[in-house]
């Protein structure tokens, strides 16, 4: 190997007074994959954008440093020279495949334009090359794809197009900025597979920017860990995972939920000495169906999308039922339907034996005391114009639980209960961090003493270290208060940590449901198996296996049959 391909030294980027990247240095060698990991705000994306001169020109400033590529400093090049490198020698793919392609141009044109620009190929030659690339990234019917527009492709297909576009010029370096973060886990696995294939074929060096330790372990040869704009550690992937030197790396790794970590245990980790055990059935739902109307017009409706078909489950006090699935599986719809935040077409929902669908809107409002919700985006879930003290007090006021100074005392107690200070009461949502906001949401949910809490992806907007704390708080509350949780998540590792029982959803149906150990350790439905196999393991020693290709047409999607005690699988 003849020295590094790219040498970044002392790179610093400032956004106004904020130092986003501070003295970052690293080397990238030909053909290797270097992962830059960090939580939000670590400067990992900014540092890579700086290399290609893609930072927003008005707000960002490269204050110092150099990035030497083939003897030239990328950061000090003229716009013209930079352009010759961009897309040609160094290509980039982005996090959001849905918005990263120009909506008004055909895929074909977007694929060929860089070829004609950099290589001076004829239209015909560029077209042939583009077709070859589409085949290479495993898209079916390439000639047809060339004529399609981005909106006709799914997210995973678009990311394949992005990769085809980036690799068409056979660049020396591919910068991949969170390339799979916006994708479902099975699609993520396919894209990661594809990236490895492409890398092996062209010998491209990959600079992978990610927050996901699982992706790092699967992909990287070497790792740079960033925290608040600074590099805290750099090393081979095995060393980073097995013997992290920096405390920050160690704590980051400790916070990452690992699938299989609790496979030997029945329930979630006990946080208190005598955790409450699952008791009476709190929630029972059966036969829930919901079809969203297609875009209505006066010429009739286009047939709607099925959000839920014959969904049923029950949750006991002190127990967590996790609903897992990919986007569009109907898991969130089910959660909202249970709370009657959404009217279902048919089915039965009973809370402590009472038929929720039969309630008048007045008695429904009263019944809401027993069921509360925690949302995915804790910021959006708090009204920005009401102080958090009043927000937490609101449910108690509505239900006439407390008034005056007693109300204040209760709010203070709730804040303390979730690990915040009572004098935070007067502040507003924007003054808190993401994790604190989620604690506030939990405090609000607890204020009326509910039996059931529906938690819809409560930690997926949070960094892993914060996620671990929030999950622990939720476990502790359940074990002391005997709360029933309906826990909605796409993250199998988080589900393993939280759930007593698991229901796997796909296309609006439950395909497998049972005790957590059964479902996660010995799945009986092929889709559950595929979902589990697709989860990247945060362990570089784990074998990188080719994924089993799931034949989507042959997945059983029928009614549930009990294959073992309490373990149901779709036939």
């Amino acid at each position, binding site marked *: 190997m003849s020295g590094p391909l790219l040498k970044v030294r002392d790179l610093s980027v400032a956004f106004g007074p904020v130092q986003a990247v501070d003295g970052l240095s690293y080397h990238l060698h030909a053909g290797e994959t270097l992962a830059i990991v960090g939580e939000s705000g670590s400067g990992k994306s900014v540092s890579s954008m700086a290399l*290609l001169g893609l930072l927003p020109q008005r707000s960002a400033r490269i204050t110092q440093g150099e990035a030497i590529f083939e003897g030239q400093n990328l950061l000090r090049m003229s716009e013209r020279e930079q352009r010759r490198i961009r*897309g040609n020698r160094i290509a980039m793919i982005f996090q959001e495949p849905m918005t990263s392609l*120009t909506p008004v141009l055909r895929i074909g044109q977007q694929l060929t334009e860089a070829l004609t620009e950099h290589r001076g190929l004829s239209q015909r030659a560029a077209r042939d090359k583009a077709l070859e690339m589409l085949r290479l990234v495993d898209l079916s019917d390439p000639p047809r794809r060339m004529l399609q527009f981005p909106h006709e492709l799914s997210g995973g297909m678009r990311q394949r197009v992005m990769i085809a576009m980036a690799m068409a010029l056979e660049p020396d370096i591919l910068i991949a900025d969170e390339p799979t973060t916006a994708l479902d886990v099975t699609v993520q696995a396919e894209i990661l597979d594809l990236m490895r294939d492409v890398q092996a074929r062209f010998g491209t060096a990959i600079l992978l920017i990610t927050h996901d330790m699982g992706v790092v372990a699967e992909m990287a040869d070497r790792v740079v860990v960033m925290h608040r704009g600074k590099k805290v550690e750099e090393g081979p992937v095995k060393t980073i995972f097995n013997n992290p030197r920096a405390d920050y790396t160690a704590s980051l790794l400790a916070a990452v939920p690992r699938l299989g970590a609790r496979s030997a245990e029945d329930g979630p980790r006990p946080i208190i000495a005598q955790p409450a055990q699952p008791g009476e059935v709190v929630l029972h739902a059966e036969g829930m169906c919901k079809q969203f109307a297609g875009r209505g017009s006066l010429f009739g409706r286009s047939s709607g999308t099925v959000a839920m078909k014959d969904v049923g489950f029950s949750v006991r006090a002190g127990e967590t039922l996790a609903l897992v699935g990919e986007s569009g599986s109907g898991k969130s719809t089910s959660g909202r339907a249970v709370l009657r935040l959404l009217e279902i077409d048919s089915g039965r929902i009973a809370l402590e034996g009472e038929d929720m669908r039969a309630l008048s809107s007045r008695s429904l409002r009263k019944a809401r005391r027993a069921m509360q919700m925690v949302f995915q985006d804790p910021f959006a879930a708090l009204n920005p114009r009401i102080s958090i003290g009043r927000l937490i007090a609101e449910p108690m006021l509505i239900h006439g639980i407390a008034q005056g100074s007693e109300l204040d005392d209760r709010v203070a107690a709730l804040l303390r209960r979730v690990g915040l200070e009572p004098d935070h009461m007067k502040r507003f949502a924007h003054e808190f961090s993401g994790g604190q906001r989620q604690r506030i949401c939990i405090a609000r949910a607890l204020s009326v003493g509910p039996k059931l809490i529906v938690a819809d992806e409560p930690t997926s907007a949070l960094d892993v270290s914060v996620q671990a704390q929030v999950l622990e708080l939720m476990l502790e509350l359940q074990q002391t208060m005997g709360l029933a949780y309906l826990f909605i998540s796409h993250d199998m590792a988080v589900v393993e940590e939280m759930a007593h029982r698991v229901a796997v959803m796909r296309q609006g149906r439950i395909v497998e449901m049972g005790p957590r150990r059964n479902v996660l350790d010995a799945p009986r439905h092929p889709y559950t198996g595929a979902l589990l196999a697709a989860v990247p393991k945060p362990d570089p020693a784990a074998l990188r296996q080719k994924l089993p290709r799931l034949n989507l047409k042959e997945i059983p999607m029928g009614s549930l049959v009990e294959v073992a005690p309490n373990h149901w699988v779709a036939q």
Partner: protein
Amino acid sequence: MLRFIAQRLFAALITIWIATIAVTLLIHLVPGDPVRIMYAGFQTTEAEIEAIRQRLGLDQPVWRQYFMYLGRVLQGDLGHSIVGSQPVLDTLLQRFPATLALTVSALIIAVVVGGTLGFFAAYRRGTVWDFGAMTLAIVGVSMPHFWLGLLLLFLFSMTLGWLPVGGSGWRNLILPALTLGLATGAVIARLTRSAMIDIFDQDFVRTAHAKGLPKTLVLYRHALRSGLVPIVSMLGLQFAYLMGGAIVIENVFAWNGVGRLAIQAVFARDYPLIQGFILFFATVVALVSVIIDVTYALLDPRIRYGT
């Protein structure tokens, strides 16, 4: 796409239909006796008023009047004006070419001037060019149309003597079209700038840059073509405002279009003519917005190839 056009046409029909209802109600909302108000300037006997009332159908119940009116409208009969007793539709159609010439030339000026100004302001966002263009635009937005018209009239006709003060030739069209075009252009400049800024901040523009395409190619092929969709979609509303603005401008420049007619009708309380004008205006605006909607649908593959 066909479905989209059908939907837009249907929406236009609904608009026109609601306009017929509004227009029938209009005469009923007049406090007092509309016939007496209309003929206030005429020497009329009680018997004549009663006859007019019967002729206009005003002695019938409202719903009956509505269906009578609708029936006549469907046959292309908008009634007769009080002043001069001309058929309303003929009068409107006779005046309409002048208004059309004015609004279309104004629209062209507005789009060319406003679009260019807005696009370059967005492209040079944050520079003195942007600041200058947007200062110009906000001053333009803040000026009353008719005042701008009077200023231009003062400058070009009175002081420099280049253009005539009033009349109906093409040279007389220059000033009113310029007035209306520049005033609307200021609005379009602001809208274009903010639409283009939204586009420049999109991920796909970053992708295009990351491919190493020349700036101009990114600008025209990726950004401008995407930006045209929201910009064109705003033009329907702008055309409606243009038609509204024409009413005032025609009066400033004594341009004999339907707008001038409308004002005279309001003064004379010539209700059949006012009704006809409103219905006519609503129809033109509705049809033009269908054309504009179809244009932007053609620009946007998500609609063009949608179901």
